């Protein structure tokens, strides 16, 4: 490494050293976490790590978080993150241009608005039947649900005990992985999205039966002729 000059940046990355010197355990525990997660093909639950390493779950969780910090501090190109209830290595988002160039199929499939809306409804309202989704979206969700199901983001989780025995849908761990979330509780709270008073008022106004004469109203009718482009 002769031509790599010593730098003035003397901020030592000693966190790893500290982690490895954790006084209550064998240094190999931390390294074993790294090794196991490296060979895993899906997120490894903290519980499973704890069991394999014969350590308390809380400690393992703490060590994983410590490792994640170590990588961040050192500025590595990879991250250790907790996703869908388990730990996994992933590339740092800043490097996505390079990774996409390398993985020829690295271009991700962006979900359509309809798919996302349906997914949001299933995520927040699960378990939910097709008919319930339809009543919220106002369109038959059959095709979208089939696509989401084929992608593995939603699945049938139960059967409605009521008459008809409708299939009830819910989200999968792959859904969490797709969004990079650890659990459903990481979804933004729905309450934050309930339309404000102004929207409610606008809608209410739009649905209000006016007392005025319909003929007068017609004169005030907003023009929505086809030649007016909806340019938003």
């Amino acid at each position, binding site marked *: 490494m002769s031509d790599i000059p010593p730098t003035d940046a003397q901020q030592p990355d000693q966190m790893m050293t500290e982690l490895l010197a954790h006084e209550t355990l064998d240094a190999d525990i931390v390294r074993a976490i790294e090794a196991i997660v490296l060979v895993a093909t899906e997120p490894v639950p903290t519980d499973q790590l704890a069991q394999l390493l014969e350590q308390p779950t809380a400690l393992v969780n703490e060590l994983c978080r410590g490792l994640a910090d170590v990588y961040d501090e050192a500025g590595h190109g990879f991250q250790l993150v907790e996703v869908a209830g388990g730990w996994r290595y992933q590339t740092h988002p*800043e490097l996505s241009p390079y990774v996409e160039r390398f993985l020829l199929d690295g271009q991700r499939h962006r979900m*359509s608005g309809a798919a*996302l809306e349906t*997914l949001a409804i299933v995520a927040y309202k699960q378990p939910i039947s097709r008919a319930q989704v339809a009543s919220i979206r*106002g369109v038959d969700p059959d*095709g979208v649900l089939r696509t989401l199901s084929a992608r593995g983001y939603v699945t049938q989780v139960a059967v409605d005990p009521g008459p008809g025995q409708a299939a009830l849908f819910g989200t999968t761990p792959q859904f969490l992985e797709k969004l990079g979330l650890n659990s459903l509780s990481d979804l933004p709270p729905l309450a934050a999205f*309930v339309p404000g008073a102004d929207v409610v008022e606008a809608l209410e106004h739009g649905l209000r039966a006016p007392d005025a004469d*319909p003929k007068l109203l017609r004169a005030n009718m907003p023009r929505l*002729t086809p030649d007016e482009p909806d340019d938003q």
Partner: protein
Amino acid sequence: MAYDVSTPVFEGPFDLLLHLILKEQVDIYEVSLSTIVNSYLAEIDLLQSIELDLATEFLLIASTLVELKARRLLPGRNDIELDDELALWEERDLLLARLLECKTFKDVAAVLASIADDADLTFARSVGADERFEALMPDMLEGIKPRHLHSAYLRAITPKPVPVVDLFHVSAVRANVADAMTELLDELPRVGRISFRRLTDGLVERLDVIVRFLALLELFKQGMVELDQTERFGDIDILWLADSAAVAVGAGPIDDYEG
């Protein structure tokens, strides 16, 4: 798939309605239905393909609107019974609730989209262990029997279901204009002259009334009755003209109307 099409403005009927109401400040009682349909069809034209699912769903919503609107426009509004008035409010509230819910999930979906976009910037490692551990690799075929392979093959070659128009919301009642004409041809020569209200007095279902009206128009078209309405929304006077009831029913093409 109907659902892959979208414009920046809307994707479905609720979206359209939301859009019309919120962006265009539309009052559904003010805007004519044909205007809504026109702007909808204009959008469909832009998509350069008719999305049957969306179109039929739109008709479903539109019919709800028509009903709300029709009640508003019909005469004798002051005479509307309390039950009807309540029902009207209930429908309005229901529609409002659905629109609000629709809007809520539209907004939350936008946030999920940005979360997904962020997540798409990272790539998970799923490489597995190297060849030193090959002997320990789980056997993917464990528990797989030839019959599983067989059913998987059939599943693979089975085309994905073709979207079809679902008629679940269409009731099975089938009102037949030809039948209604037969009834009228039996009844009208006997009474000679009758008002439409009296003619439909005994009918409970609105659909039956409508079918009778259509049958009447058909007879009018064939010159067998004379119709007269003295005032707007007033009763219709029906006068039997034909001397003979021997006119062949169904000689011309008569549509069936499914209710």
